[in-house]
């Protein structure tokens, strides 16, 4: 092996490990839902290449209101789905759309765009 090959091999391995860590194992920031005056747990979510925030923590048994605003024209993100709650909403560009439901059981529930390219998670405690 030439020195160049050794360098490339080691760099490649390191890069692979980094990719795996970066996407799967690195801890992600969680956002706790604020409780509004009406008693609902509210979070504003921006949709642009992803959901910001994408990890939302709420309490079980209380209504949750997620206010989505889509700030891009890409058709991928035009819907948001909560398959576990059988909820979905169309997100017209630039318009705030609320998705409301009450999670009863604690657990982790994913939400996503129609094709699953954008993903987020609702953690019910």
């Amino acid at each position, binding site marked *: 092996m030439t020195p160049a090959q050794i360098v490339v091999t080691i760099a490649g391995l390191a890069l692979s490990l980094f990719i795996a860590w970066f996407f799967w194992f690195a801890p992600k920031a969680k956002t706790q839902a604020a409780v509004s005056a009406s008693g609902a747990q509210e979070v504003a979510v921006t949709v*642009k290449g992803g959901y910001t925030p994408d990890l939302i923590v709420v309490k079980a048994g209380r209504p949750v209101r997620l206010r989505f605003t889509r700030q891009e024209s890409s058709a991928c993100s035009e819907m948001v789905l909560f398959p576990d709650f059988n909820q979905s909403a169309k997100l*017209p560009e630039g318009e705030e759309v609320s998705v409301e439901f009450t999670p009863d059981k604690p657990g982790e529930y994913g939400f996503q765009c129609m094709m*699953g390219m954008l993903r987020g998670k609702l953690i019910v405690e």
Partner: protein
Amino acid sequence: MIKDPVCGMEVEPSSAFATREHMGQTFYFCSQNCVDQFDADPHKYAMAGSSTTGYNPDLPLARIELPIVGLKKNDRAQALEGVLQSMPGVRAAKINVGSRTALVEYDAPAVTIDALSKAVKLAGYRVGGAQTRIGIADLHCASCVKFIEDGLKATPGVIDATVNIGTQEATIDYLPEKTSLPQLRSAIEEVGYQTRSAASDEPEDKQRAEHEREYRRLMNKFWLAAAISIPVLIAAYPKFLPIIRDWPMETLRLAWGVSALLTLPVLFYSGGHFFSGAWAALKHRSANMNTLVALGTVAAWLYSTIAILFPSIFPEGTSEPFYDVVAVVIALVVLGQALELRAKGRTSEAIKKLMGLQAKTARVIRSGQEIDIPVEEVLAGDIVLVRPGEKVPVDGLIIEGSSAVDESMLTGESLPVSKKSGDEVIGATLNKTGAFKFRATKVGKDTALAQIVKMVQDAQNSKAPIARLADTVSGYFVPIVMILAVITFVVWFDFGPQPPLVFALVTSVTVLIIACPCALGLATPMSLMVGIGKGAENGILIRSGEALQTAHQIKTVVLDKTGTITKGKPELTDVVVVGEWQENDLLRLAASVERSSEHPLAEAIVEGGKARQLNLVEPSAFEAVPGHGVIATVEGRRVVLGNLKMMQRESSALGNLEAKAAQLADDGKTPMYVAIDGHAAGIVAVADTVKEDSAEAIAALHKMGIEVVMITGDNQRTANAIARQVGVDRVLAEVLPEDKAHNVHLLQAEGKKVAMVGDGINDAPALAQADVGLAIGTGTDVAIEASDITLIKGSLKGVVTAIEVSRATMRNIKQNLVGAFIYNALGVPVAMGVLYPFFGILLSPLLAGAAMAFSSVTVVSNANRLRTFKPRFSAK
């Protein structure tokens, strides 16, 4: 405070300048001028400025039905009732927990809807109502927002109003019984703004417009990339073109430099969304298709640029650029996205068709006048006039006239249905022959059509369990592809042929570009969208992707007898006579007696008599003998109708009638003896008859390899008679209603997927117990809670079509999923170069770009193929 209907000024009722009564409503005025204007045309102001309610305008008290949100079935309503009743000016308040409404009677000027709404809120509930959006022209100052909002809130009937300066629209929650659109508009205009219609109330239209914009944007990007690709390709492959192949190295290097600059707009304009998308995803520590395309193209561009700028740092022969990869791949992927968008638009055609059914205007009768109004303004309680050839605008009950109505668009029933006074009409159906008036019962989002649209949309956007695997895979897919690209680079660099750097780069870029997570993600939702829409077109409402998926595995169908296989209503079937009696004479006497009875069997005999156009007369001395029958005098004759016990009581000799009766009973009919003036004269028999197409539908189910079971609370004899007529395999008779669910469970225990078909009310537990519950809905009652699938047409053929739709859709989904998995499972290794050591085949990144772009188009197109699905029992 209350509003002057002419100028809109707020007036204290006690200190008003003048008052006027019009259509049972009191109006208060601020000045002589306003009164004069009002007197000149009271109707105009009364309609625009006050409640154009469909509810008793003559009542002295204002009376309103407020929809209450948050009221649960088992809530104690007294608290809310108490709160409302304690309000000064409220005379009575009654909560109906079932319909989730509060009926409030109040003094109109003293109590406002706003106050009622606040009181409801205090009690922990919310007043529901209609919502509308009105566009406001040239709204620029943020402080004016509050004026408009206050103006709207002061309008009677408005619960809440918010103005969005961004969208230049007001969103208003209001009670449609208490206000109308012109009134809301005039409230805004009074503040000094012009109103216009809101952008569009239909999210579908909005989405279509968005798609159109996005499509044009993508096509612009494509044309730029395609145009630039041509010179870049020429410079990239000089040896294939005359003249250019003779260019000296210096000229070529210059051409490459120009390529580097030319591809920049392709990267940043045509491919800009890949980079912004990739960056946004990266910030969320996630990766998607954008990441792959962005990485692949930027790697190619960077390598090429370094190669032409510093050729000396690369080994001999590796300093060649790949600008063609950048331009062509971006052009192809963008084109693929545009085509995909086009094809996607077609998948929701069913919904567009459904919404297009809605009538645009309605002719209602208000205060004795016929007026044409937009269908959105029709109120529950309005009297609506429909002429031949017109669409029925909303749901309601006919109060006058009769006609034949074509309901095929909603129910799939091809023959026009005859309607008379008291019958239900459904909005969006087509009136054929006669004119009629009906009272609107359901309007706006409560109409059957609106509920169907909502149900179908929800179902289309739900997930089928089969999609879970694809979803899980696509969650890990992109990072895995990135790691594979790195490994490919290393392996080709370490073990590949000369020049290793070029091979390593080209193969790893190809891997990044060929992988298509989109095809995986699109596979299920696209087919589901088309399949569920197809069901709706055929009168089958599938509630979710899960229901659709389970339906294709059904092996046993359990049919409830009454109302499902049969019409659910007894009909006269036989008239048997003895001696000189004529059938019609006997029936006329029997039917005349039964006119006084309220028993459903009696009704069947009366209907049977009317059907034969017999002249029925009023009986006298009517007497019902419980458990026996009835006795009455008709035209001086003593007529006795009843069972065997009745005949014994009357000591009428039956002769061979007893044998006839036994035979009729064997056929599942209910025979009744008729004795006239003490002598047995004959038998009338009634039965719940089988629907015309039940046998055909059951035969079709058999052909599909499905076992058909009938379940009924009737006795074995009746059940068997019906079973013979329609040809079911198994009969579960004498099953108590509460045991139906248990019987379904027993069938499931045989290891089969069981579907239960019933009417949705009595059969709710059995429908819920079954793997798939199919409810037969009729008329406007479409959103049946307990069912997974609702058959709008009351025919068993719908069961066949539902299973067919489900099978066709699942087949399509499987094709898509298998296709997408195979594409990626083959494409990625080939791009890595696994074929190279054996056959010397290496995939060009240009080809990879084309493959990736068209794989997702293929998935969407395959889903669109489902649109040609034709059920066995075609509705049209």
